[in-house]
């Protein structure tokens, strides 16, 4: 498969169309939803850039924390949830909170990089 234009380029083109052509012609609710749509595309662009490395790092931490290899990130997160739910892991578990913090910082860097809580976490 070729990638000219790439997914990134296509999304950038649609985002530019919304921002520069469509949104200025809209009013009221439609204008609001155009802004939301543009922001959603910005999220996808950040995700394309950040997710591959962030998810690999998350998986490595999960493997270390759970003592596993080979499972998917989703499966590992389900296992982690189960360990927390059943009380096998809690705030006193070495490495748990730092792992959750790193994962959430990466997630927010995609989802809402301007959120105030992200600045607080970095301090």
């Amino acid at each position, binding site marked *: 498969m070729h990638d000219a234009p790439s997914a990134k380029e296509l999304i950038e083109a649609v985002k530019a169309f919304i921002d520069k052509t469509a949104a200025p012609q809209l009013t009221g609710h439609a204008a609001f939803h155009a802004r*939301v749509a543009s922001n959603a595309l910005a999220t996808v662009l950040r995700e394309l850039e950040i997710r591959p490395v962030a998810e690999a790092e998350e998986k490595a931490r999960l493997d270390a924390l759970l003592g596993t290899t080979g499972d998917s990130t989703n499966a590992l997160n389900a296992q982690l*949830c189960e360990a927390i739910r059943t009380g096998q892991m809690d705030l006193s578990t070495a490495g748990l*909170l730092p792992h959750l913090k790193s994962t*959430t910082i990466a*997630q927010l860097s995609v989802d809402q990089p301007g959120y105030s809580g992200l600045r607080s976490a970095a301090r």
Partner: protein
Amino acid sequence: MGNGIEIEKPLTAWAHAHFGAGARVEGLKRLSGGASQETWAFDVAAPGAAHALILRRAPGGVAAARSSEAVSLATEAALLGATSKAGVRVPEVLHVSAPGTALGESFVMRRVAGETLGRKILRDDEYKTARTRLTRDCGEALAGIHAIPTAGLVELPRSLGEDQITKYEAIYRGFGMPRPVLELAFAWLKANAPSPARPVLVHGDFRLGNLIVDENGLAAVLDWELAHIGDPREDIAWLCVNSWRFGHSEKRVGGFGDLPEMLDAYAAAGGARYTPAEIDWWEILGSLKWGVMCMIMYSAYKTGADPSVERAAIGRRVSENEIDLINLFEGLGRHA
């Protein structure tokens, strides 16, 4: 549904009955597009006086199947009456209209001048003085609300911390989308539950957005839809949840104040004496609830009930609550 023509006639009839035959309804305008209630602003020009008013009305005048939490408009109106009598700043209710009447299920209250938008209240020079008073005003208002005898009140749902954990955990599990940070919050809250306080009237959504602020401070407490009998610390902590600090994270109380000052004002006004550390558990519950609420809103997209981009995108706000929870976990034990 919800067009002004439909309600202008019955509203005029009410204005004639209430203010005299010469009264005219002017400037009727829909304020909120909220799915749960319609809110209309209007003025009545009566002989010798003008009145700025608000109509709160069930959509189309008919109460739909309501969420189990939200109280009816008649209950909301009754609460405004009871809290006003107790000295809490709330809009005065002039009229309650029953289901099946020309106006439909609704009530009319006075329109209080001021601002509700959190970002403006926290930023604009106009509210500079107000910001120095809001912390104390909120502490006093909450103490006033929590002191109202529940025995004489209209019937309200009862929801303590434990009930809310059970409810939101069931919703979260129902989605089948495991999120370790939320999981940790549920487990921690259950393992560290404080002993329950004596149940009081809780506003349920006491935060910027639902408070009218003028240049002198708190002018009125609005939006009593989520009122219930519960734990007073729930209201205090909800105002502290970072989502309601509108970017001003350094001020724990609503983005404008420090918690010890609010707790002092609360105790001085007759409320119980709490320490900031006693609010942590409830703030963690608050952030967790708001995270699950974002998942609920996203699920409306996922199920096809609301195909808007907005509903889809709100699913990417759950992580805001997750970082707030992590910041709260890291801060545990740091407060006195």
